[in-house]
């Protein structure tokens, strides 16, 4: 890890994740969403900005199946997608 014998240089400090660890998806319940997300990434040259809808769907799948703590999507950084959706609904 940071075993370089350099006195004074900043070494890397691993930090625990903010919301802890994802429980393992032993039964592959969200595998379809993951495949969709990865296909989207491959099609878009691995740009994350263009595949945020798919990542949002994957996280929603996890939350539905108790594989992730329920959290509002704004808190996970999808506020702009939520705003778009509510605007689209308003315009309908």
């Amino acid at each position: 890890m940071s075993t370089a014998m350099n006195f004074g240089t900043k070494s890397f400090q691993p930090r625990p994740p903010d919301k802890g660890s994802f429980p393992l998806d032993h039964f592959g319940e969200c595998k379809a969403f993951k495949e969709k997300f990865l296909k989207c990434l491959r099609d878009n040259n691995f740009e994350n900005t263009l595949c945020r809808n798919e990542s949002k769907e994957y996280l929603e799948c996890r939350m539905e199946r108790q594989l992730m703590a329920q959290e509002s999507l704004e808190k996970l950084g999808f506020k702009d997608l939520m705003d778009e959706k509510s605007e689209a609904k308003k315009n309908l």
Partner: protein
Amino acid sequence: MAVLGRPPWRRLGACWGWWGGRAAALQQRQPPWRLKSTNPFTREQEQEWRRRNRTVLMYVAAAAVGMIGASYAAVPLYRLYCQTTGLGGSTVAGHASDQIETMVPVKDRIIKVTFNADVHASLHWNFRPQQTEIYVVPGETALAFYKAKNPTDKPVIGISTYNVVPFAAGQYFNKIQCFCFEEQRLNPQEEVDMPIFFFIDPEFAEDPKMAKVDVITLSYTFFEAKGGHKLPVPGYN
């Protein structure tokens, strides 16, 4: 001639006769606390000096003990200072989820995050990333996947840690949720997807030291864990 080998206050003893005896008696070693001066007028001064010396000695000893105590107390005090001011990077307490809610993506700074996967030699898992790289911008949450397979016939428990290169960029790399630092159990012949949900702090774009950094490599390493052994999670929690 042997008299020259004696200490100066003893040399008079070599004198013969009455003088020799008197001098020897006088110069016999007196107890160290007996005052040196025999003159009554200077005795008081000598006592004053001795008192002053003792006071100075007390002050110096107290200062030395104080320094040793301060060096022990400095460790928790510095930690407290770092947490309140946030200087020094790694011990900022509280990346609250409100930060994620309010952060604005810095769209003009594209960073390539490459993924690396390693296992310890004694752990026979197939562990690899499911995408080689992903282009993110600071302030945007991103999802990435690793895949792990247990090809053996026994359930194996693994635990992982991660590393971010360049080291200095590691303080901007925030993981919201991942699979590290907790035991993960894989049954025989089981294959699972392991997601990581992360973002790069928008302040990354404002750090002059990070101006030339365009590629960040995230590297995960899996080790075998003995079941039930609770490992300390790094950090000052």
